[in-house]
């Protein structure tokens, strides 16, 4: 075991883990800033621009504030689960980055069912929310947790079913080979799955928004009714962990959308050797950024829908669409 821990393979793997973990955490912190600034621009107000130039040091100030805030525990709360819940929502959110390929070589693990592994890990994220809402022993968190678990269960179905079409086309469950199958172009159009599976892409994107509890599907923490939903009673770093987990899930959903529908790290490659090495990761991050940008604009512009509309939309619109897409795709794959 000591041999393995000092071997070259492990050191390379360790360096990759550090790069991906550090990069993701840093990106998450600045995503919050970008979101606040962008929302502010949409709503014609300045937003947080006091800390550092253009407010660039705001995430650091926020982090310090979270660390030094008083840690409150509500009376009669279930202390064990109250402390465990933020951890339980943070671990799955970060664990899914272990199999996401950020570039041809920049990935921690490459297993042959990596896509299913991500779905498995993210499906465990609901426990953090449910237990956090229950352990707080307060009515608004409980309501939020109930809504959130029902919503996440409903939309997970259409989210998972929407990618089946892509799987049938690429014939693989490994994210790396899904990306590799989208290399090249038809004349000048890139060979991305979005052109083969437009319906699946729309279903995936909409259920992705619902799965991450974002507006217009953020019934779980609708401020006007439930104060802040399941994390109403949380403060300080525990709240920050819920907050970061939400953003990490957002990045995961965007990364999966990029890998499955937008060709992952594929893109034009040019320049000297170091640019050819860095460019795939740059394309990948750029595509994720586009998704995050759309997420934020949707949040800033579209009002929240009603709870019955949410359930109706999930079960009677998205789910049949995803099933029909599977039928049509399997028919076409078999015929062509």
């Amino acid at each position: 075991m000591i041999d393995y821990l000092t071997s070259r393979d492990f050191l390379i793997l360790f360096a990759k883990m550090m790069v991906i973990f550090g990069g993701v955490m840093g990106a998450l912190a600045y995503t919050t800033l970008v979101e606040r600034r962008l929302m502010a621009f949409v709503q014609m107000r300045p937003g947080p621009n006091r800390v550092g130039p253009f407010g660039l040091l705001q995430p650091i100030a926020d982090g310090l504030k979270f660390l030094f805030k008083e840690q409150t525990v509500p009376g009669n709360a279930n202390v064990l689960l109250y402390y465990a819940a933020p951890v339980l929502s943070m671990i799955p959110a970060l664990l899914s980055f272990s199999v996401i390929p950020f570039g041809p070589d920049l990935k921690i693990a490459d297993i042959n069912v990596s896509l299913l592994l991500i779905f498995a890990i993210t499906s465990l994220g609901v426990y953090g929310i449910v237990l956090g809402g229950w352990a707080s022993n307060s009515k608004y968190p409980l309501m939020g947790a109930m809504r959130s678990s029902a919503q996440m269960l409903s939309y997970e179905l259409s989210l998972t079913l929407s990618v089946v079409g892509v799987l049938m086309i690429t014939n693989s469950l490994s994210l790396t080979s899904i990306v590799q199958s989208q290399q090249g172009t038809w004349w000048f159009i890139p060979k991305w799955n979005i052109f083969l599976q437009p319906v699946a892409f729309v279903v995936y994107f909409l259920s992705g928004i619902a799965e991450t509890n974002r507006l217009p599907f953020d019934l779980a923490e609708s401020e006007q009714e439930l104060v802040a939903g399941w994390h109403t009673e949380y403060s300080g770093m525990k709240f920050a962990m819920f907050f970061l987990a939400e953003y990490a899930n957002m990045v995961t959903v965007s990364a999966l959308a990029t890998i499955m529908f937008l060709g992952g790290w594929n893109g034009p490659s040019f320049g000297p050797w170091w640019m050819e090495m860095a460019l795939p990761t740059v394309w990948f991050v750029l595509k994720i950024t586009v998704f995050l940008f759309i997420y934020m604009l949707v949040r800033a512009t579209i009002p929240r829908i009603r709870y019955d509309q949410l359930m109706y939309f999930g079960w009677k619109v998205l789910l049949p669409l995803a099933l029909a897409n599977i039928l049509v795709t399997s028919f076409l794959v078999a015929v062509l």
Partner: protein
Amino acid sequence: MIELLFFLFAAVALGSAINVLIQRHVLYSSLSLILLLTAISGLFILMQAEFLAVINVIVYAGAIMVLFVFVIMLLNLPADEDGVDRLRWLKLVGIPMGLFLLLMIARTVWRVEGVSATTDLAGTPQAIGASLFTDYLLPFELTSLLILIALMGAVVFAKKDL
């Protein structure tokens, strides 16, 4: 390394399985069950059956147990009280049944020898799909029929005026 991981996952699985039984509060029991399922998935991965491991987590830990926890929270079940022993007669049936199950497992373990799951491609989705649609087609289709019937039963229960 593999042996170390095996003993880790086995210890977690056994510990959480015992915890499922001895906990008084039903929520803690179901949380231990989730831990048990993830530990078993770890054991599957050690045997290179990644597909089974992942499906185990998705179906049981990610979907079915969420419903369990959901219902427990919705009903807000209190911890079991001491003294109320409604299952007294079931114990008389349960002990022989448990012994019988143990015997069957022991017999199976005794008879199986020299099988290694690590060599062939038994755990890949392709192999599982192929065997589901050829050798085990009838059980597979019958199971789906059973699930459909259960689904219709749930609808009938939920809707009073059908």
